Each structure stands twice: as structure tokens, then as C-alpha cells.
């Protein structure tokens, strides 16, 4: 508790602590899956559809594979891919949005109309179409989610850069003889990263849901890969054995919630107004 009291106010809220603990726990599980998993995730040597109990705490699936082990190994598939996905959308969307906001005119218009085009479709449907067109594989599912995820970053970044570009110190930098690139890099971008990082953290949950959703629909990971979405899909075939679908589903749920809590916390911490509100509530 003493360590806790040294943290900024926003990070001491119960949800923030829960989010951080769960997220870190999942990262550890993903990193140490081979050490933690009691069984080989692909070995089919256990009784089929055994209900949860000693030896296989989350039960086994219809091929006799240990579900706990598969979930642990699945963390090594879903979590890194989701993070990679969010980082890539952030970089691509952020870069395009920053250019659109800073340079404006036809470049900006072009980029933003492209973003509008993506926004015009329901996210899941468009991701499904792209994934199906590219062919079902985990890589293509990531690409598909990337296609639907970047415009949100582009829009937010553009808005922030537009506002920042009009600030006097940015003009002042240009009038000291610095190039447009240096102005964008040093004067504009550092001042807009906070809100974009919040968006990215909140987006981790959405990205994981979309990615496992595509796998659930058979457009992503291929068997026997222990991907959570695909595992839930497998569980649908054996509805009586509730544990087959429930535990991978819970894995998705906890990761999504944890990163959403983290995103909320980051927003509160970066926004002085909410930070103050939390302080007043605490007093």
C-alpha cells in the first residue's frame, strides 16, 4: 500500500489497479506459457471433453487437448498480435492524420476522404470482407483489422494537429527558419501524443475483439493453432460442454476489460480536469 500511495491519483483508483494487474498477469502468462502450461497445447492425449477438474482445471476439448494450456499458449498468439496491430494502426493512421492536418489541402483531403470511405462501412463487415478477400489466415486477419482501424487514428490526429498548428509557438518555430518537418516533429507531435496514446490503449480491447471475431468466423487462425476466437468457435459445436467455449471467452473478456481500464486511467491521468475531479472525490 505504501508503493500505491506514491503513484499519481488516477493510478490509485481500484479499476486502474485491477486493469494494470490483470494486463501484466496476461503479459506474463504469454511470456512464460511454456513454463506455466501443464500440458502440450496440441497433444491429444487426455480424455475428450472432460469437465474441469484436477489435472485439467479448465477441462479438455473434443480432441482431448487441455484447455488451460491452450489458453496460455493462445495468449502468445492473441496478445502480441493485438499489440502489433494497435501499434501499426497508430503509426499508419497517426502519420497520415498528421500529414493531413499539417499540410492540408489536397493531400489532407485525399487522406480524409479515404478515411471516410472506411468509416462508411460497419467495422466488422468491412473487416470480414477484407479478410475473406485476402484469404483466411491470421496474417490476413491482422491486415483486415488494420484496414478498418487506422482511420480512427488519422481523424483524431488530424484534429489535434489542426488545432496545434495554429498555436503561436508552432508559427514561431517556422519563423525561426525551421523546416516544416522539424516543426511537425518537434513542435506539433509531442503536444498531441497524449490523447492518441489514450485512444490506442482503449483500442487494444476493440482490436482483440475484432481479431478473435474474425478467427471465430473462420477468417483468421487455422486449427490447430490455439487462438482464442477459434477456440470459442470450436466450443459452439459442443454446447453441452460449456467449458470449451467459456474459458477462452473469459480470456478475451479479461484482456479487453483490463486494457479498457488502463485506457480510462491513462485518460484521467493525462487530462488535468478529470485528475482534479478524482482528487476532490477522494478527499
Amino acid at each position, binding site marked *: 500500500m505504501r508503493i500505491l500511495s506514491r503513484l499519481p491519483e488516477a493510478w490509485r483508483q481500484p479499476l486502474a489497479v485491477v486493469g494494470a494487474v490483470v494486463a501484466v498477469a496476461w503479459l506474463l502468462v504469454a511470456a512464460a506459457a511454456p513454463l506455466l502450461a501443464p500440458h502440450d497445447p496440441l497433444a491429444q492425449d487426455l480424455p475428450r471433453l472432460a469437465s474441469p477438474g484436477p489435472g485439467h482445471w479448465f477441462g479438455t476439448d473434443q480432441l482431448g487437448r487441455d484447455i488451460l494450456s491452450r489458453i496460455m499458449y493462445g495468449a502468445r498468439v492473441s496478445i502480441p498480435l493485438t499489440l502489433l496491430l494497435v501499434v501499426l494502426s497508430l503509426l499508419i493512421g497517426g502519420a497520415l492524420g498528421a500529414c493531413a492536418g499539417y499540410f492540408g*489541402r489536397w493531400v489532407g483531403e485525399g487522406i480524409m476522404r479515404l478515411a471516410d470511405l472506411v468509416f462508411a462501412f460497419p467495422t466488422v463487415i468491412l473487416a470480414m470482407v477484407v479478410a475473406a478477400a485476402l484469404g483466411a489466415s491470421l496474417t490476413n486477419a491482422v491486415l483486415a483489422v488494420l484496414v478498418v482501424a487506422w482511420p480512427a487514428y488519422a481523424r483524431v490526429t488530424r484534429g489535434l494537429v489542426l488545432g496545434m498548428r495554429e*498555436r*503561436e*509557438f508552432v*508559427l*514561431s*518555430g*517556422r*519563423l*525561426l*527558419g*525551421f*523546416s516544416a518537418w522539424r516543426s511537425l516533429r*518537434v*513542435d506539433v507531435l*509531442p*503536444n498531441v501524443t497524449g490523447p492518441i496514446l489514450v485512444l490506442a490503449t482503449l483500442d487494444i480491447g476493440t482490436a482483440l475483439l475484432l481479431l478473435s471475431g474474425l478467427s471465430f468466423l473462420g477468417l483468421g487462425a487455422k486449427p490447430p493453432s490455439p487462438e482464442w476466437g477459434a477456440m470459442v468457435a470450436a466450443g459452439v459445436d459442443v454446447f453441452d460442454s460449456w467449458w470449451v467455449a467459456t474459458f477462452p471467452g473469459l480470456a478475451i473478456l479479461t484482456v479487453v476489460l483490463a486494457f479498457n481500464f488502463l485506457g480510462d486511467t491513462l485518460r484521467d491521468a493525462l487530462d488535468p480536469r478529470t485528475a482534479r475531479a478524482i482528487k476532490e472525490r477522494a478527499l
Partner: protein
Amino acid sequence: MSSTGTPTVLSVEGLKVSIGEHEILRGVDIGLRPGRVHGLAGESGSGKTMTGLAALGLLPHGARTSGRVVLDDGRNLLELPQRDLNEVRGREIAMVFQDPATSLHPMLSIGRQITEHMRHHLGLGKAEARARAIELLGQVRIPGPAAAVDRYPHQFSGGMRQRIAIAIALACGPKVLIADEPTTALDVTVQAGVLRLLRGLCDDLGLAVLLVTHDLGVMSAVADDVSVMREGLVLETGPRGQVLRTPEHPYTRALLDALPREGS
């Protein structure tokens, strides 16, 4: 135009700027001379800020322009390619803005903001630039310059920030300083200090200063020459005493009459 002997370092000649149908500047002539403060007065919307920015070769996108902004080496800023313009900006002509709360980068230390363009334009090394930054902060009378160089803008008061902004502008030893309402956002007591500083720098360094202001009080305190603008035109230009004491143009007279006077 009044001639005071010394040649101009920067002159705006017949500058016209219009956006669409709207004429913002309708033929502006101003000459800046070393060691002299040229005051540019006028009401809001008269085009004085636009003239100041044009003196740095900065014009709004999509504006139609004619006329010239010429440096003493004959280069016309309005026709320079961007790369050459970047070389002139900050190095030969620098600008100080109205509100020092927004004109300094909130996330960079004072030292970084003073040294960055020095290193860029003059190719100074890190230590050299830092030493020069401390010297500059002393020159604009920031107390404890050696410590101040590592602090951030929010740790200074408005007046101090404006002094820092002036130090940044002067870092590369420009010939021309454009100051757009440099004291408007400051308390009256602080204003006097900043104006004195500007006046002193102008005299000591032989700077040519264009002081854009709507405040005739500020103008009469520091300007050598005065131009009065209205609706994109320079109505009257001349030495301060002549323009402020025996104004020729009725608008200048009206401006002077609008000043509160003792005993009235």
C-alpha cells in the same frame, strides 16, 4: 518617405495583398533602418500584423500579392524559394509575438529553445550554444541565467517569458526584429521594462525594429519613426515627433485626440 541617411536593411515596397475580392493591404511602403525602432500603428484589421508577417515572407495561403519585401542584399523575400527563406528567417529577421504564454514551446527547456536555431543556422556546438544562451538570457536581464537555461516556460512570469522570447529572437544576431504587439499581453509595469529592453537592444546591437502596436503611448515611448495604417494603407510616415506632434492626416489626428489626456 523620410530619409535619415542610413540605408534600409529591410524595406517593404508597394505591398498589396488580397484574398479573393478582399483587399487586405493596398500598397504599403515601410523602410527599416539599423538602430531605429519603426512603430507601426493602426486599429485592429488595419493590416499592421499582416505587414509584420509579410516582412518575414509569410503570407496567407491563396493570397494574391504584388510589391516587394527587399533585404539589403537585394533579395526579395516574396520570391525566395522556401529553403532560402528558412535561411533568412531566424537568422536575419526574427519575430517576437504578442502573447509569450503561447509563443514558447511548453515542453522544451528555455535552453533548448534558444540554442536549437543557433545550432541550426550558425552551426554552433552544444557547449558553445549553451554558453551563448546563458549570455543572451543575461542580456535580456533574466536573473540567474545559468540556472534559468534549464527551466521551462511555465516556471516564468509573463514579462520574463517575453524577455525569453526576445532572447530566442536575438540568438542568431538578426539584423531585423519584428515585434507584434510585444507588450499588449503584459501588465503596464512590466510593459515599460520590456520596451526599455527593446529600445536598449536596438541601440546597442544596431537592430532595426518594426514595432507593431495599437498603443500610441507605447509608440511615443520608444519609436524613432512612426507609420500610421488604416484599411491596408499607410496614411502617414515620418519621424515620431513630426507625426505625433504635427500630424498631417486627419485620421492620425483623430487617433491622437482619442487618447485620454491629463486634465480633460
